[in-house]
């Protein structure tokens, strides 16, 4: 690694996500955050590496384990935290919560808690881009569990059939909730399934942030150059429970411990210090700044307000007074 700026960004991205989520777990125990809370701890290299390869006007479709993607696409931590608290200052006005973070201004399309539910959506977004001749990429994140859903197969088929600009990012953390990969898939090499639809594929070590970034860059370049889809399998691991309700009966502690040895943040930090790309002071600076950001985010969420119950039924349909969003000009 010679690119100091990129190394700093990647490490900072991962640390911001990790520390934010550790705080979320704490706030969950304190009953400030409720509902489902799916933490990304262990998988940070995937979001950090891949999202850095996107341009600002590319679109992102994510899952219910999307805090990292939301934050790293530029949704302020303050409004993410307020959303977790259910406050109306949240990025979804408190209507979504942890699983449904949205930001139209960032082209961040959520936060979909139906496994594989985001895939057709991403293909549709890409269809519009293709037909309106926008050279933009839609990055679609989903897990290994989604690959067993019909929506995955229908979406890859149509994305390939119609040559649409989707970067399919499979975050394979080896478990669909509590069901191990080999107990859910007859073919455990997920790239084979994507390749069967004639979508070009890559598999990458999802614990290595640089490898994730390189793979994503390759994928994004392919999608932008050809206008067609690309599939990346990020092989990663979730260190914590599926959600806060999960007693983790389905996997050995030893297995988790083994993966923890490959913590993407620790290994990348060590590597950067070893080869001199970053200094101790750099790392300390990143940690300090993340801590300050989190403190401000929690304070913002605490100070946030509850939406008036009289507004309960708003935003079910678009109010007549609101002008409909004007589509982009046709070719």
């Amino acid at each position, binding site marked *: 690694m010679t690119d100091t700026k990129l190394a700093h960004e990647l490490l900072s991205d991962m640390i911001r996500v990790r520390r934010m989520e550790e705080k979320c777990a704490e706030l969950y125990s304190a009953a400030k955050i409720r509902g489902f809370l799916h933490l990304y701890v262990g998988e940070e290299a995937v979001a950090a590496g891949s999202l850095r390869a996107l341009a600002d006007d590319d679109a992102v479709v994510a899952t219910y384990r999307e805090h990292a993607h939301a934050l790293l696409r530029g949704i302020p931590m303050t409004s993410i935290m307020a959303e977790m608290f259910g406050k109306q200052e949240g990025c*979804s006005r408190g209507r979504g919560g942890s699983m449904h973070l949205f930001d139209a201004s960032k082209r961040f399309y959520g936060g979909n808690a139906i496994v594989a539910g985001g895939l*057709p959506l991403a293909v549709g977004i890409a269809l519009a881009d293709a037909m*309106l001749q926008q050279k933009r990429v839609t990055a679609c994140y989903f897990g290994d569990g989604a690959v067993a859903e*019909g929506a995955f197969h229908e979406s890859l088929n149509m994305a390939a059939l119609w040559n649409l600009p989707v970067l399919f990012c499979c975050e394979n953390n080896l478990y669909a909730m509590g069901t191990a990969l080999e107990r859910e898939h007859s073919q455990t090499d997920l790239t084979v399934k994507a390749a069967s639809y004639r979508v070009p594929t890559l598999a990458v070590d999802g614990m290595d942030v640089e490898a994730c970034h390189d793979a994503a860059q390759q994928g994004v370049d392919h999608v932008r150059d050809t206008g067609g889809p690309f599939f990346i399998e990020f092989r990663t691991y979730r260190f914590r429970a599926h959600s806060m309700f999960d007693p983790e009966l389905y996997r050995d502690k030893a297995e988790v411990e083994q993966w923890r040895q490959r913590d993407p943040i620790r290994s990348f930090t060590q590597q950067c210090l070893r080869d001199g790309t970053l200094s101790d002071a750099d790392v300390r600076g990143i940690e300090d700044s993340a801590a300050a950001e989190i403190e401000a985010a929690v304070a913002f969420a605490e100070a946030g307000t509850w939406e008036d119950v009289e507004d309960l039924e708003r935003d*079910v349909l678009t109010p007549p007074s609101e002008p409909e969003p004007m*589509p982009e000009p046709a070719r």
Partner: protein
Amino acid sequence: MKTSYRTAVHDALRDALRDDPHVVLMGEDVGRYGGTYAASKGLLEEFGPDRIRDTPLSELGFVGIGIGAALNGLRPIVEVMTVNFSLLALDQLVNTAAALRHMSGGQFSVPLVVRMATGAGRQLAAQHSHSLEPWYAHIPGIKVVAPATVEDAYGMLAPALADPDPVVIFEHVQLYNTSADVEALTPTDISRAAVRRGGTDVTLVAYGGSLWKAMDAANELSLGGIDCEVIDLRVLRPLDDDTILESVRKTHRAVVIDEAWRTGSLAAEVMARVMEGAFYDLDAPVARVCSKEVPMPYAKHLEQAALPQTANIVAAVRNLFGEQQ
């Protein structure tokens, strides 16, 4: 000019595609085949395969793609071959299209139009014949319409496309071959019910394919001196309570006709609203005529016996006046 319902649907699609380059039609066999009910015949030739997009048999996928495309600047009209097949896409319609605006705190409206055929009468048996409109009408976040006339078959598409939220259009299969004399086809509205026949003695509330059975019943009953007012719901969600209640307050009696199964039907909802809004105006309990609670049988006599018929409607009305059959 004599115009068929099928032609009206076709012309509405053609005009929408001509008027706005963002409109695309996608679905199974909408292109080369010309549409299962021939509603999109010739459109592929005029607008090309990008805008008249034949899809694989992937209802979940292509309805979801329609949602994504709608979010990102296109105005997709997604055709699902029949309501029974739409169950494969229900996840995308309910969990995404209907929920997205609310779930995102008002950031993402989904200007999607979904058309599908519904209803029985063609001996297509238990997987092609049902009326599941009430299920859709249950869902906040979408609008549901059922054009019953040639005018509405044409006229409802433009306002559906102009609507910023998802609109589901149900076309009853028995209507495609019906015709009417119409002066000109123009956009209508997707907000109000319509009084199709004025009357003073009883209100018949119907929609879609059942409207014409209700009209026939009204004609027959008029010979016996019972003057029926017939309301075409047109919009199944949100229901136009005012038009229904205004009529019932005048006639003091109501019969609701719904081709869906009786339990949990739209008829049940209309009856409940009449009870809530006009109970003290009623001279008799509100009655309903629905489909029998069986998966639709194939044999013609059984299928006909399962469906609401003009004779059942006539009997239900007479019963309200104490006349036994």
